[in-house]
């Protein structure tokens, strides 16, 4: 059965059995192994991907179910060599220890800030409540997401380079 997906901006098409799970399609067919398989029973969130911007557990989706949709995996967060605000937050605040849950945590955090740019600590904790950190490093994960929110807020407030240039020139 044909599956056509856009993953991190690149279109992919493949012929797969209907029983192939999205996480296996991403890891095996597309060789994008940043999406992890943890519990494999939709409990841990290590397999989280964004489907049209919404975080879902890819171990509990069939690839054929999301044909035509746009997927973002952890590999899609950075713009070239530049880390996304969420990645910078995890880097600065030591938001990871073993790193296994990190792709899912960062994607959930990214989706949260899209619709709630200034979440409270409680809202962050609720947002990541479907993702388990086996190192129990939740304190720093929350701080990392807060850090990312601050980076985004600062970027939104800072005058755009063109605006500065225009102002300076005139």
């Amino acid at each position, binding site marked *: *059965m044909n599956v056509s997906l856009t993953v991190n901006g690149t279109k992919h098409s493949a012929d797969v*059995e*209907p*029983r*192939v*799970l999205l996480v*296996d399609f991403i890891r095996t067919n597309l060789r994008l192994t940043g999406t992890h398989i943890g519990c*494999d*029973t*939709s*409990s841990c*969130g290590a397999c*989280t991907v964004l489907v049209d911007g*919404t*975080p*879902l*557990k890819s171990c*509990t*989706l*069939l690839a*054929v*179910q999301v044909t035509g949709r746009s997927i973002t995996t952890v590999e899609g967060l950075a713009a070239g060599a530049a880390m996304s605000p969420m990645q910078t937050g995890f880097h600065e605040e030591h938001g990871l220890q073993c790193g296994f849950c990190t792709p899912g945590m960062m994607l*959930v955090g990214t989706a949260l800030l899209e619709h709630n740019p200034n979440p409270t600590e409680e809202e962050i904790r*609720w*947002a990541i*409540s*479907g*993702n388990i950190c086996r190192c129990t490093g939740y304190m720093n994960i929350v701080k990392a997401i807060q850090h990312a929110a601050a980076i985004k807020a600062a970027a939104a407030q800072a005058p755009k380079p063109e605006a500065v240039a225009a102002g300076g020139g005139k």
Partner: protein
Amino acid sequence: MFPAAFDYRAPSSLAEAVDILRQRGEEAKVMAGGQSLIPLLKLRFSQPALVVDIGRLPNLAGIGRHDGHLTIGALTKHAAVESSAEARSVCPLLPEAAHWIADPLIRNQGTVGGSICHADPAGDWGSVMLALGADFVANSESGERVIHAADFFQGPFTTALRPDEVLTEIRIPLAAHSGGAYNKLERKVGDFATVAVAVQVEMNGDKIAKAGIGLTSVGDRNLKAADAEKSLAGKEPTDAVIAEAARLAAAAAEPKSDVRGSAEYKKDIVRVFVQRGLRTAVARAREGRR
């Protein structure tokens, strides 16, 4: 883990879906969001020859009002109920319960209709729909059929739906001066309920005109605490009346002892949650929060 092989159809219309089910309903499973079915397929507890994916059918998701009812399309996601301003204003029991279902990521994909048809005795929607006196609309090649929530749940993972039918809509009767509450005890986010209780009341002046009570995880299906409901009708919600209803609801519960607690403990949680839920529901009905 991956499921056993199956045929897969993703019909593009309801007519096509019921046509497939007319021909192959007996060997098929209908999938909406897949958040209950896919785990069963992966564990191979379920090995249907055919999966009919209705997840992309048009016009089956959304919350609206029609003829004194709140209507919920079967494909409405839990998260959509949780964040629905419409539901919050006319039937806050719905978003309150939605908030406790599984975890945020599952709520982004799982559907109200799918959860109801899965009929897990630990499912949250079943109790809520029993408390609200909801009707379920089922479609098949022979047309539309309305099934009352009280007649729908027949046993663990067993419903009144025929193999050729698909659930399309949930209809919830709306009443003024009503209020509800959902109380759930879970060990951690995403775990099945140890116990949960849905309560809805409709007030007539100082008295309870009508009460609905649904129990989660304390029987072979979501249970309607009918004796407790009847004991409240026409009464002022005094401490004694509430305590008696709570006692009757606990007596109706049939929990089993397991890792989440002993049967005795769970029955007592039912008692406490019915009391707590009734107090909250009555207060909400009185302050016009429904």
